[in-house]
């Protein structure tokens, strides 16, 4: 998975969690919280959807790594690439 693909995965999740947000102009280097109305309940949902859909675990101490799309991609892409191939 590339970092761009990883960003799309995160955006797809946000689109389902917060369908009332406009995601067409999300800046990858700006904190998601600063450009979208997402609260702690929404961030918990991003983490849980990552687990549900992609079996990616994000421990609570590492939630700050999901702050922006860029930081999500830096943090999550290696995790995606380390997943065992789907059988």
């Amino acid at each position, binding site marked *: 998975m590339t970092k761009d693909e990883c960003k799309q995965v995160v955006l797809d999740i946000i689109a389902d*969690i917060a*369908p*009332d947000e406009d995601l067409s102009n999300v800046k990858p280097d700006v904190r998601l919280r600063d450009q979208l109305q997402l*609260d702690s*309940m929404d961030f*918990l*949902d991003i983490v*849980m959807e990552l687990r*549900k859909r992609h079996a990616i675990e994000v421990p609570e101490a590492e939630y700050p790594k999901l702050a922006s799309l860029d930081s999500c991609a830096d943090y999550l892409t290696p995790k995606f690439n380390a997943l065992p191939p789907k059988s």
Partner: protein
Amino acid sequence: MNTCSHYDVAIIGAGMSGLAAGIRLAHFGKKVCIFERHNAVGGLNGFYSLSGRKFDVGLHAMTNFVRPGVKGTPLTKLLRQLRIAREEFALCEQKQSRVAFGPRGETSLRFTNDFAVLEGEVAQAFPAQIDGFRRLVAVVKTFDDVGLDAQPVSARLMVRGHISDPLLEDMLFCPLMYYGSATEHDMEFGQFVIMFKALFLEGFARPFDGVRVILRVLLAKYRAAGGERRMKCGVKAIVADAGRAQALLLDDGSTITADHVISSIGAPETEDLITPPARVAPPSVPGRLSFVETITVLNQQPARWGWGDDTIVFFNDSPRLEYACPVGAVDARSGVICLPNNFDFGPVQTLPEGIVRVTCLANNDRWASLAEAAYRDEKARWFAAVQASARRFLPPLPDQAAYERAVLTTDMFTPRTITRYTGHFGGAIYGAPVKHRQGRTALANVYLCGTDQGFLGIVGAMLSGISMANYHVLKST
């Protein structure tokens, strides 16, 4: 037939909070089952059919209404958390509501889903109080009302810090108390803030078809997420050992096990199920506030009688509001009138019949012990008294006899009805006066959601289920 005997989470009660908790848990892959003693969902906010008509119970209006685009409020949080599109509820806004005080409602504050209307009314009726009112509103807006570990503070004391006219104080408390307070005379300030936002800063709306639309959406989500439910199958006992729930004994005599139990039935009611009894010091005290509600169905729209403007009227005829368990069977001096026809359903839709609902405080003990014939007589007597009292706060009827002829049917619920259908001790609609924000009980894996967790109203109930599912189950696994 659901035959599995072990669940990740068992939920007691299929009301708004239990269903919302269930949707969250099932969505994230938990094996969850809701156990409901009755054959209908909804609990305090359900509906029933009587001679072909459907009557809503509980819900006069859904509070917390905000228009599309307004974010960060309870309604939008709940829609996101449950993955519900707002169109699914198809909410129609209120026209206007009023707080009317004095023997004929001489002092009146109108409010709508636009807060400026209430602010303007306060400025006009209480010019000396408007600055204090604005200060109070500023405090309300910045108060953290959903924190799970706030310390209780008297709302009366907090409000008096800004408002010195007792009439205005009571007029503000009246709707907030009637729509959710489990404590007499006063409220906890956090609860006051939740209700102030829900009613005044946000607003009222309802689906055209009433509460069943909301329940239908919740049930469909729950089912689609893979949640199970067992109807007509309540929980008879929570079998405890070593400080944990080990099993649930069901009404049908069978036993199931669950890693977590979420109970929406109330704090004292949940404690009562624990076997052997947990030593809780002090045990939860049931609430004392119960209600009667009269329902009148008319073959005319309320507008026909000049009653076409008000959606909800909160009334009180006394110098001070007495929100407390009455000495007599009913206290008809104050109450709530709901005219469901007066939501703005748009140009095409009109409810087929006129409906007038009136709610007043009632004393559970006075109703609970009556023999059947005496119970019927008391209902008839108080039905008339409640109508007579409430009518003082609506425009006078042009033709009393014509109104009486337009009545198709009536019904009335009492504290007895509430106890029977909700299981709340003492018919206490809003549960016990002491709330448990973190939902903890004497058992480590049993949590409360709903009324006694303390988020109020139906949006609050759903958020309560969501919060407790998140906090106790989803976040920790």
